[in-house]
């Protein structure tokens, strides 16, 4: 199958198999930041933006993204670095495999919520698993990042 859509601000046409999910397609087209930890919508690693809203790309059919805006962290390098500086200052990224999906969710949250409480932050990010960090360092990094800007 084929469709036209926009990825990271560029028009692209995608060829994909019937029933293929977006995470698979994106990786095949070289958007290697997109990681998968479960492929069943329960870890958050594959989070990208669809029209500026975070979605799980492993649970989004590629066929549904025609004429939409897809954003991966490859297009948000400056913002990711700005947040990333707080993350590395905490040591909160360890293996880093969960990071792209986590950062995409954090950056979306920043656009959506102003002055969120720690509870609101935790709820927004509840679907993003991390086995390494224990979550607390991520929270400290987020709070510093949200306050500074």
């Amino acid at each position, binding site marked *: 199958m084929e469709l036209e859509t926009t990825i990271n601000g560029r028009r692209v046409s995608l060829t994909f198999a019937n029933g293929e999910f977006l995470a698979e397609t994106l990786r095949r087209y070289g958007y*290697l*930041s997109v*990681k998968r*930890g479960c492929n069943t919508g329960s870890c958050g690693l594959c989070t990208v933006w669809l029209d500026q809203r975070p979605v799980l790309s492993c649970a989004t059919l590629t066929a549904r993204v025609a004429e939409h805006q897809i954003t991966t962290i*490859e297009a948000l390098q400056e913002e990711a670095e700005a947040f990333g500086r707080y993350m*590395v200052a905490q040591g909160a990224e360890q293996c880093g495999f969960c990071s792209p999906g986590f*950062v995409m969710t954090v950056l979306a949250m920043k656009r959506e919520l102003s002055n969120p409480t720690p509870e609101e932050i*935790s709820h927004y990010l509840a679907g993003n698993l*991390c086995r390494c960090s224990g979550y607390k360092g991520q929270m400290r990094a987020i709070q510093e990042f949200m306050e500074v800007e």
Partner: protein
Amino acid sequence: MRHLQQAVAKIDGLALVKGVPAYTSDLDLNNNVLVVKLLRSPHASALIRSIDVAAARALPGVECVLTHEDVPQTAFTLAGQSYPEPSPYDRRVLDRRLRYVGDEVAIVAAVDEASATRALALIRVDYQVLTPVLDPASALDNAELVHPESVHTNFEIGCDPSRNIAAAHAVEQGDVEAELAASPVVLEQTYHTQAQAHCMMETYRATTSLDVHGRLQVMTSTQVPYHVRRHLSRILDIPRNRIKVLKPRVGGGFGGKQTASVEIFPALVTMKTGKPARLVYSRPEAFSSTTTRHAMALTVRLGADRDGSLRAIDIHCLSDTGAYGEHAPTVFWVVGQKTLPLYARARACRYHGHAVYTNKTPGGALRGYGATQGTFALESALNELADQLGMDPAELRLKNLITPGDSHPVLSGSLPGEPARLASSTLDRCITRGCELIGWEEHYPRVQLSDTRVRGYGMAVTMQGSGIARIDTASVLLKLNEDGFFTLSHSASDMGQGSDTVINQVAAEVLEVELEQIVSSSFDLDTLPYDPGAYASSGAYVTGNAALRAAEDMKAQMRAAVARLWSLADGARVDYADGIFSGEDGQTMSLAELAQTLCSFEGMDQLVGKGTFGGETSPPPFIAGFAEVEVDLETGECVVSDYVAVVDCGTVLNRNLARIQVEGGVVMGIGLGLYEEVRHNSKGRLMTDSFMEYNLPSRLDIHDIRVVFEESVEPTGPFGAKSIGEVVCNTPAPAIAQAIANAVNAVNAVNVADVGNLPRLYFRELPITPEKVLLATLGADAAD
């Protein structure tokens, strides 16, 4: 210090946060790579009567289908351990006998995923289904055997497959039975710890190909690249010099990737077809067909005087190693090794029992490696003993702890008749500090918040090791490049914990240069010195010590080179500080000048420093952990509202990485205590093979965690450091169990008068789910 004891950012941190391609599946791009898939046993115990792969082989796009008839029948272990491995050689690549649901039946390789999946469905297997052994308690001397054939071991580990025993072991110091008989207070209880899954976010994966020289190239997400190469060489019967191993960034390991679960399958495909091959485990495969933390039943007997002086500690362990014995003997030993020495004041101690085979997902290495299970049992028993004595559990521990200068025959590095000596510990201070921070005096054992909400308090202490004493030995090479920066090569195999960063910090500290002046090389085994890998908490201590020695060697060589270039007389001094060499006559030379000269015709002497280190002892890091758990008496729901971990890891080399290690480990321990459990059904099928079924802690489950360091100085450690990676997950489960018991028990345990008159509830089986809490409290009410 310039770089150490500071919060230095991980050298790969920013790149990983920004999502740069760094992991195995990011780097193995090749349009012609074959997709490998495995057919797995649907039965917990079965024999293959016949297997028909004709239709699968005939399918277009299928390049190769392999069964037990097509692969080498060498016996081996997949455990990533130094040779001779203690683990039994009890597996084959593919076997006619299938020992658990998920055991490999056949290997398929095809041009794409869809063809490989279709081919799997076309394989016809006639199984003779056998009765599985599922309950470890009845595995011993069961009529059904998991391994009816004999099993090779490299040395005596007590393996007896004719009794379903994978390993057996006993150590005793003093006369435990006599001390117990003489003890006025005796406690005996049995504790159960469950199988836990690693759940690293990147599942197991490897990609293989033949390189330009026809060597087998294996890119793999592993903690043990050198051991992987040795295993492959043995199984495939090709010399190690024909195998090249590449280790990219690893998306988490936690001990899981200390077992070579996947590499052999694509490697076989590449050897058979000459083509590149890739195997990526799905999440269900990662759950069902790799390894778990060994489930254990531990019976603890304690004997004490009325004043709380321990007389005897006896721990008997039954460990469930599942279908194969990867790490079965060593995890088993560590249970005793990393618990008994804690209480060196006890006059006698013993650890004994065995690890049994069952027809389930194999046990293996998981952060804590037996110490976690042993700590749960021993520390829970200590807490119960404190209740029996009417004593503060903190005081009971302080009375019996090992202190620096004490020796103990079970401490790692001990030789017969020569018990190892503890050189550093601040555990007593860790306990006192933790009591202050959690408010032990005011709050222990419980604070009633309302009729239905109670906060309970609990504690535990623990130790681990730093590397494997007298065995694991690592090397570091340090090259001075032509414009004055260094390349530091090692194979410590960073899996996210930050060893690449910490090892660089140690070298930069010695060499007195900026961190950026040292580049880390840890990818291609062809260019790296030997290192057993990332396990046994060895990174900072073992490889860190090797880095320290390599940097000192480099510094000495540089000074000598400067002396030669200046044609100084023997014994003339060359000083070095902050990248500048200076002589007695006021001459100076920069590091960059020296490097350029040495790489040119004029100097003609490329410098390479080296350091090798293996520990005679395995200095234990210590933690005192304190839990505050809020219990809802109506629902049984337990929330760890506050956790305090006070840590002695020697000198803290990197403040932020050490803190995160503690926080991550504590959360893994909370998972073990309250949430996580690998469960099988009555037929041996895994019921928890997704994140929907397996209850991994999410950020909503985690509340306050406070980490404090009480640094000691370990004389054998690099700049005084000990390890941190594993010790961190041991205290939560027993501390939480005690806190919950304290919350639900109406008895105030420090009130001596009440003790013995009222029944007390304890939680001796992990995980402590709301159902268990409710059942226990209902049962207690009914008994009143």
